[in-house]
């Protein structure tokens, strides 16, 4: 990827033509941020190791970083982690896909149609504010301890923030843009496709971002309380019962990496989807 930046050295307003100057961006600049992060994390784990070695806190609650990494490595080596991680990840991605497939169109519809909004919003708001845990007993009653219960709780957690954000996005579309659409001959469908949808895209993405955060919580409570005997939640639960602090911390680290990874992926997507938004904010 070559870095060219459009220079702001445009000539007078009156004049035609523009000047774009390429500027040099140091090779190091790109690696600098990565470097800072690596050093930052290294320092974090070193401090962790030192504090744990000082044994100020009982090692039963606070293991050494090195023990945590050992548990992580062994867990992958002996096959205790990977099946659970892949179970959680698969479930989560399927749940997120279902949530997006339901949440985005319904949310857009609620934003665009007063009647749909009127009919659906009491349920949507009730479901958005209801703590997910409260649903677990009912879901177990209906679906038992299987995978479908875990998947359902992920969807129920993620779908509503997506819906609400999409709805809000449609409602914030600038009226003058819609008017411009009407003036310049766009049909209703064309206004949706060419004005409202692109305008709403950043909201859709931030809805999905919230859906990821909520969905992860849903995934964990489903695995912790659902008693299905699988997933990262199960690993956490078992490590806790066995007083296996290194494994407990290793699982938490895995969860952190998983959620950061997903959020970063969305951020990347957001920049692809709406570059104009980012630049106009700056």
């Amino acid at each position, binding site marked *: 990827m070559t870095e060219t930046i459009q220079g702001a050295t445009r000539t007078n307003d009156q004049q035609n033509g523009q000047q774009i100057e390429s500027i040099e961006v140091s090779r190091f600049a790109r690696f600098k941020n990565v470097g800072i992060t690596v050093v930052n994390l290294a320092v974090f784990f070193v401090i962790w190791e030192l504090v744990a070695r000082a044994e100020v806190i009982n090692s039963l609650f606070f293991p050494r970083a090195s023990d945590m990494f050992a548990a992580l490595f062994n867990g992958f080596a002996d096959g205790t982690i990977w099946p659970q991680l892949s179970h959680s990840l698969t479930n989560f991605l399927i749940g997120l896909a279902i949530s997006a497939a339901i949440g985005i169109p319904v949310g857009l519809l609620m934003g665009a149609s007063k009647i749909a909004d009127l009919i659906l919003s009491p349920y949507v708001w009730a479901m958005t504010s209801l703590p997910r845990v409260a649903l677990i007993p009912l879901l177990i009653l209906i679906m038992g301890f299987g995978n479908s219960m875990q998947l359902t709780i992920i969807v129920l957690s993620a779908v509503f923030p997506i819906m609400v954000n999409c709805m809000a996005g449609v409602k914030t579309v600038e009226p003058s843009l819609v008017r*411009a659409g009407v003036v310049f001959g766009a049909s209703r469908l064309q206004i949706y496709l060419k004005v409202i949808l692109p305008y709403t895209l950043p909201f859709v993405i931030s809805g999905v971002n919230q859906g990821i955060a909520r969905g992860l919580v849903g995934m964990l409570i489903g695995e912790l309380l659902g008693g299905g005997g699988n997933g990262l939640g199960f690993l956490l639960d078992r490590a806790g019962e066995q007083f296996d602090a290194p494994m407990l911390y290793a699982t938490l680290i895995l969860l952190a990496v998983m959620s950061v990874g997903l959020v970063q992926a969305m951020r990347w997507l957001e920049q692809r989807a709406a570059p104009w938004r980012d630049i106009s904010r700056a």
Partner: protein
Amino acid sequence: MGQVEAHSAPGAQHAADDRASEPALIEAVHVTAGYDNRREHTRLIALRDVSLQVRRGEFLAIVGPSGCGKTTFINLIAGFVKPIEGSVRVRGEEVTGPGADRAMVFQDYALLPWRTVERNIRFAMENRRGHVPKAEQAERAARALRLVGLTGFEKSYPHELSGGMRQRVGIARALVTEPEILLMDEPFGAVDAMTREAMQAELEKIIAETRQTVVFITHSIDEAILLADRIVVISKRPGTIREVIDVDLPRPRFDEQADVQRSPRFGEIRSHLWSLLADEALGAKQEVATR
């Protein structure tokens, strides 16, 4: 002061007078318009009993205190607002909605931020109504950009442009559809003073070339006088037509030699408009004070 009888000025015979017998292009007949407040069961009357004719090729400016119904009037012509009483006609036909014969330039530009300049202009040609064949679109867009002096900025995004440049894109988008009528609602209201003057001069040049009929709302008295053939002064809410003033200044008005802004006639019209609008402003203040 204020004895200037602006419409019956002798001398400079106005071009529009020659066409006086021709039927009006835009015609408002006893129009009353307003907005219903359904919750409180009230109706705000924004314009009351407004009758006005706009001739083909005329540049009509509308001035008046804010909230007097200027935007409402332009929206009636655009077809966004329906009159409560009376009718608005274009070429003798009742306006029932927006149409390809009328294009609008918005105060806030209303450009699609995710589209480049060129694609914003193409937006006016690619929709269901007023669709232009693809092959022709590029050529027309290029011509419109040349007209507003933005050649070379095709690939720029609106956020990369200054306010004045954005509004030129807005103007180009309106011109590219070759509408008979150009509706402009305070188009230069958000650009700085220097750019504003340059854009007024440019607009005069463009209109001289394209010969559109223009309805132009402005806050600025000078802008109205410099651009318009006639100025409609609307009184405060509910808006009624206070006076219609013929601007019998020679064109082009942005010519260095002509120096219209320093001519005695410009000054006369200006002070007349000032006194009219000062009345309105004072009236509004008194109304507040006596409450």
